[in-house]
Structures are given as C-alpha cells and as structure tokens.
C-alpha cells in the first residue's frame, strides 16, 4: 500500500444546540477504503456528527471536506451525488412502495442524476436497473420480499433494505448509523459479512455502532466520542487498551 489517502476530513467542527455543545472541536480523518467506527455512549453526538457530514445540519463552525470538495453548505442531494450515502438510525425508506422500487429509485438517482424529466418512458423498460436492484436484494438476502410493501417489513428487514438502497449506488463513502440495531444475531452476522464483502471492494465506511462485536469485527480505526468530544482514537487494539475509554464507555456498559 502507498501512503494513506484521507478521503473524508471533518475539520474543527463545532455544533451547538442552544446551550448544548453537541459537538466540540471534532477533528476526524478517514482514510480511503477503511472502515472507521465511531462509538460512544447515548447522546454523545454520534448521529449529530453524521448529520453534519451529510448536510442535514450546518455546523456552528468548522467544515467537512470530502475528497477535496467542501461539503459544508451543500444540499443533501448534492452531497449524495458526490458519492456519499447514508443508512439512518431510524430507517428512512419509501414505506408506501414495494421493496423492489425502494431499491430501484436510488439506482435511478445514480444513473440519471438529481433531476430528469423522463416522464414518457416506461419504468418497465428499465430492465438493467431492475436487474441491478434484484441482484442487490439477493446480496442482502431479500429477493423473496421484492414485491412486499416496504412499510410492512420487520425493523431488521427495513434496515437491510435501506442498506441495499445505499449500496446500489456504489457510494465512495457509506455512513452507517447503527446498521444492525433491531436485528437478530443471525441477521447481524449476515450484515457483518455483507459489510466485509463491500470492504474488499474498497468502499470507505463510517459506522456508528453500539454492538462491540460488530465494531471489532469490522473497524480498522475507532474514534470514541463522549459528550461531543473525541476522547480517543486509534486501531481497535489501541482503543481497547485505553483506560480513558474503558472508564467513559466500555467499562460502563460492557
């Protein structure tokens, strides 16, 4: 490997909600192709950090740079078009549509861009998009549910489908906010396998997770967030051995 290439740089980000300092002085560098886990107790600011990266929230100060492009100030759809996709903590899916259509829509966004007035074309003629979506559903083990109403899926299945919706875009950076929450042990392991498989394809990932089994199976780097600050980061072994971390987080809950 040559010198590591920082693809995502969160630089001196602060985020205040009124009096609450939800993110303080965050400096985070994620290297290309790596899986970077962010762990920390409830309310630490993990989701807020993803919200700042994805353009859902504007930071009070500081900025986020992705592969040379400043993300701060861009709209969520522009950020996605740069190659960033996100799985939310509470699944954001098209509950009224079929599972297959849920996965076809992001594929169309990837192919056609932010807007296309193709209203006389038939969706049925989008054969390659459909096949792509079916392959994706097969990968996450949901092909048999393709005609189901997404709203009627179990919580774990909604998450897996949302993951498929992100993966079908082949994002360069994938942000995952507790992707296995609400899943059975079996589904969690399938998801870990799936995420490992994508890793070999070179996708960069930022993953928030409470499940330490998931974190230590996937992460190359871990940052520990507590009360809006990064209190430690490094390789899994470094973080595991860090007494500050054990005190603030690991010791407390596990």
């Amino acid at each position, binding site marked *: 490997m040559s010198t590591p290439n920082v693809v995502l740089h969160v630089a001196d980000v602060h985020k205040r909600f009124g009096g609450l300092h939800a993110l303080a002085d965050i400096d985070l560098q994620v290297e290309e192709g790596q899986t970077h886990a962010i762990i920390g107790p409830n309310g630490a600011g993990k989701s807020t950090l993803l919200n700042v990266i*994805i353009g859902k929230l504007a930071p009070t100060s500081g900025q986020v740079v992705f592969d040379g492009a400043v993300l701060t100030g861009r*709209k*969520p*759809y522009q950020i*996605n*078009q740069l190659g960033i*996709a*996100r799985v939310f903590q509470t699944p*954001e*899916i*098209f*509950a*009224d*549509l*079929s*599972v*297959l*259509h849920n996965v*076809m*829509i*992001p594929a*169309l*966004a*990837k192919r*056609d*861009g*932010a*807007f*296309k*007035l*193709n*209203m*006389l*074309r*038939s*969706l*049925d*003629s*989008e054969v390659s998009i459909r096949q792509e979506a079916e392959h994706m559903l097969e990968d996450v083990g949901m092909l048999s549910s393709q*005609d*189901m*109403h997404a*709203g*009627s899926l179990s919580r774990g299945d909604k998450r897996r489908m949302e993951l498929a*919706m992100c993966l079908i*875009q082949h994002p360069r950076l994938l942000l995952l906010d507790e992707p296995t929450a609400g899943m059975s042990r079996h589904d969690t392991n399938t998801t870990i396998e799936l995420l490992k498989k994508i890793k070999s394809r070179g996708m960069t990932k930022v993953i928030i997770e409470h499940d330490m089994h998931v974190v230590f199976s996937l992460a190359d780097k871990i940052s520990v967030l507590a009360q809006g600050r990064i209190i430690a980061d490094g390789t899994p072994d470094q973080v595991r051995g860090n007494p500050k971390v054990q005190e603030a987080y690991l010791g407390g809950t596990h």
Partner: protein
Amino acid sequence: MLAMSRNDILLFLGFTIAVLAMPIWLQPFGAAYPDLLQRFMIFGIFAVGFNILFGLTGYLSFGHAAFFGVGSYTAVWSFKLLSLDAIPAMLFAIAVSGVFALVIGYLSLRRSGIYFSILTLAFAQMSYNLAYSVLTPITNGETGLQLTLADPRHVDRMFGEAMPGQPVPTLLGQSLGGFAGFYFCAGFLIIAFFIAQRITNSPFGMMLKGIKSNQTRMNYTGFNTKPYTLAAFVISGMYAGLAGALLAVTDPLAGAERMQWTASGEVVLMTILGGAGTLVGPVIGAWLIKYFENIFSAINETILARFWDFLPDGLDHAAVVVSSKFVGEGWFLTLGLVFVLIVVFLPGGIMEGVRRIAHLFNRPDKSSPSQGKAAPQPQPAE
C-alpha cells in the same frame, strides 16, 4: 421504450371504450345528453390532472381553479381575437395556464404541507378577486367574457366573411354543439388519461411517488425534489387549463366564479372521492359528483313535496323543510356529508372500495392490482 404492459393496455382500452360509449350506457341513468356528458369529460380531465400533483406527490393544492379559469379566459380571447376554431384556443389555454402554474407553483412550492395548500389557496383567491376588479378589461368582471358579433377574429376574417348569427366555437368549420362537442371533449379526456398513465408508470412518476412517500429519503438519495414537484405542478396546471378551455368551447362565457375556492375544493373532493393516486379513481369521482350535482341541484320544493306526500300531514311538511336544505342550492351540504363518510370509512376512496370487493371475490388469486400498488393486503390511509 414506449412499451406498455398488458394490464396498462387493457386499462387504457377499457377506459376509451367506456368513455366513447357513454351516450349509450348512461341512457338508463338519464345522463346521456350532451351538456352533461361534456361536463363529465371536462371535469374528468381536471381531476386526472389534479391527481398528477396530489395523487402522486402528495402536495395538496387548494387553488387549481385558478388555472381552470385562466384556461377559460384564454380560450375565449382566442375565439374573440383570432379564430373561432377550437384548436388554437386549446393550445393557447394550455400554454398560458402552464406559465401561470409555473409562477404560482414556483412560489408555493417553497413550502410544503398545510403552508403549501394555504399559499395555493391565497393565489387562487387573489386571481379571483383580480378578475373581478382591476382585470375587468380582460375578464369583463361580473358579466363574464363572451363572444360577440363585433369581435375582431383576425384570422377568421383573413379567410373570408364571418358566419352570420351568434358566433360559436368550431372545429375546422364544424360547430361543436351537442354530441360533436362531447366527442371533441372525449378525445381530449382519452389523450389526457393516456398521458397521465404514461407519467404514472414512468421513472419520473416513480420519483413523484417517492416524494410523496418520503421526501427526506429522496433528498439523501441524490434527487433534487424541487424541479420534480414543480414539473408535476405545471403539468397539472396545464390539465386544468385544458379543462377550462374545453368548458369555454362548449359554453363560451367565461366568468370569474370558475376560479372561486369552491371550484378548487371541488376537484379535491373528486380526486379523494374516487381515490387519490389511482388512475381511474379521480375520473369516477368527477363523474359521480357532476352526475349527482345535476340531479340534486335540480330538485326543488315542489318535487320534494310530491316525494314526501305519503307521510301524514305536518310530518311531510317537516320532511320537505329538512330535505330541502340538502338539494338545490344546498347540494354542497350533501356533497360535504358524503365526503365525510368516504374519508372516515373508505379513506382510499371508491377505488379502495373496489379493491376490497375484488379481494373478497378472489382471495386465493394474489395477482397485484394494476395501479402499481405493491401491497398484498389493502393498505390503510396514507
């Protein structure tokens, strides 16, 4: 690329046949006369277009009568200034109402939900009031804009003398009164339905449904949702303008009341009554409302008195007084009542009722309904 699925072709053919045969199958209902049939077509177009916005994107406009009115005025002006031929009038009406919709849509779509609805309502009421006040040179105010013998009709006059008698809209020289007017409107309804069907089944239509279902996800999926909603708004505005123009063809007297909020509300009722988001539902809603409006608003106290005659004296009088509130001018009271019942008991409208009944009959057959509904079970209100 223009391939349609078998179901879509069947739906389209079925719809076309049902429309063209209306003068026959509506006879037993006493509704097979041109004037009413024309209105069925016109409001069917209005509702189909409204559904492209409301049914697909979920944005509820309370001001679509404005575009309907603009279409009417534009058509009458085309008759007055250019030619009595209906085709240029239609084209101008669609174009002008499209421009109107672009402006109003651009401003209203800066908000969503109830604020969007209020904005559209405000713009429509503004148009209505303007039509009555400062714009009277264009709209002829309360009297309404109508055709006169003295109209310039520049294009017509280039090709010879105007026909004698009261001017009426024509198609290639043929008068569009009576059944000719019905078939003219029916042609447009069929085209309008076809285009709506294409839009619904296109990737673009899928994006509109995505916006209705979860706009946040659309944004994080890389879509700029603004131009999608604006396009839907403009298309539905053009449909409304076309409908308004057709009303001007069949009845060339354009009045501002066509833009009133009750007219905007009526198309909302038609769409929801029939089933928002479905293709045929809004048309059926429009037909039913226009049919019952026709019946109920014609009933007067004399008819009621005859109807309740069998009741004992005194009681029959009370029955007449009470029921008279629901007919004639009071038809809207009946409509409101029916609407409440539908929304409470059948939130998906008549089409949901049809789906439920169809389900009772073919339980084991799990074929998915033709309207792109993926749910294996009937779904609750959206």
